[in-house]
C-alpha cells in the first residue's frame, strides 16, 4: 500500500511517466518534493488542480493523502 500519484495530460510529459507510487502519508510539501522540479513548478500555478480520492481539492496545499489514496495532478483541460 502506498499513495499513487497520477500525472494527467501534459504533466505526463513533464514527469516522464503517467504515475508514481510513494509512501504515505503525503502532504503538499511532500508532493512538491517527489514530483520533480518541472511538475512542482506547474503545481504551484493556480491553473493546476489536485484531486485526492476522486475529489478536486478546494485548497490543494491542504493535501493529506494516506496509503491507498490516489492523488491526481490536473493541468488545464482542453476537451470537446
Amino acid at each position, binding site marked *: 500500500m502506498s499513495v499513487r500519484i*497520477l500525472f*494527467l*495530460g*501534459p504533466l505526463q*510529459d513533464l514527469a516522464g511517466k503517467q504515475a508514481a507510487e510513494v509512501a504515505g502519508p503525503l502532504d503538499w510539501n511532500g508532493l512538491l518534493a517527489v514530483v520533480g522540479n518541472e511538475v512542482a513548478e506547474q503545481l504551484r500555478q493556480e491553473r493546476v488542480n489536485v*484531486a485526492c480520492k*476522486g475529489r*478536486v481539492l478546494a485548497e490543494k496545499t491542504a493535501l493529506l493523502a494516506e496509503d491507498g489514496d*490516489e492523488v*491526481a495532478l*490536473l*493541468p*488545464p*483541460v*482542453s*476537451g*470537446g
Partner: protein
Amino acid sequence: MSVGEALAAFDAANPDAGGTASFLGKVRGGDGVKALELSHYEPLTLTGMEALAEQAAARFGLAGLLAWHRVGVMTPGEAIVLVAAAAPHRRAAFDAVDMVMDHLKSAAWFWKRERREDGWHWIEPRAQDRADLARWK
C-alpha cells in the same frame, strides 16, 4: 456507436419535446493533423458530466439531454463529442447544447493532444473557450 443511431434513439426517447438541438464535434483534418488523442481522469469525468447534465436540464427545463464524449486516439473525420438537448422550445434546446459544449471544452476533465508530422502536441486551452464558459456563470 453511430451518431445517427444515437440521435434517432434520443429522438424516440423524447417524443413530447417540441425541439431537439444537437452538436457533433469531429476531428478536423488539414493543418497536418494525423490523429487526435483525448484522455481523461475517470473518477472525475463521469460524475462531472452527470452533474453538468442535471444542471443544464434544470436550467433550461429540458425533457432530455444526451452528452457523449469519446476518449482514446481518433483520426480526422471521426466523432469526438455529441450533445443533444430536447426542450419545449428551440432557444432552450440550443442554449443547453451550447452550455454543455462550453463546459466540456473548458470545465470537464479531458486533455487533448494531436499528432502531426513531428509527433504529439498537447492542445492548450484557449482564452476564447474560457470566455465562452463565463457566459453561463
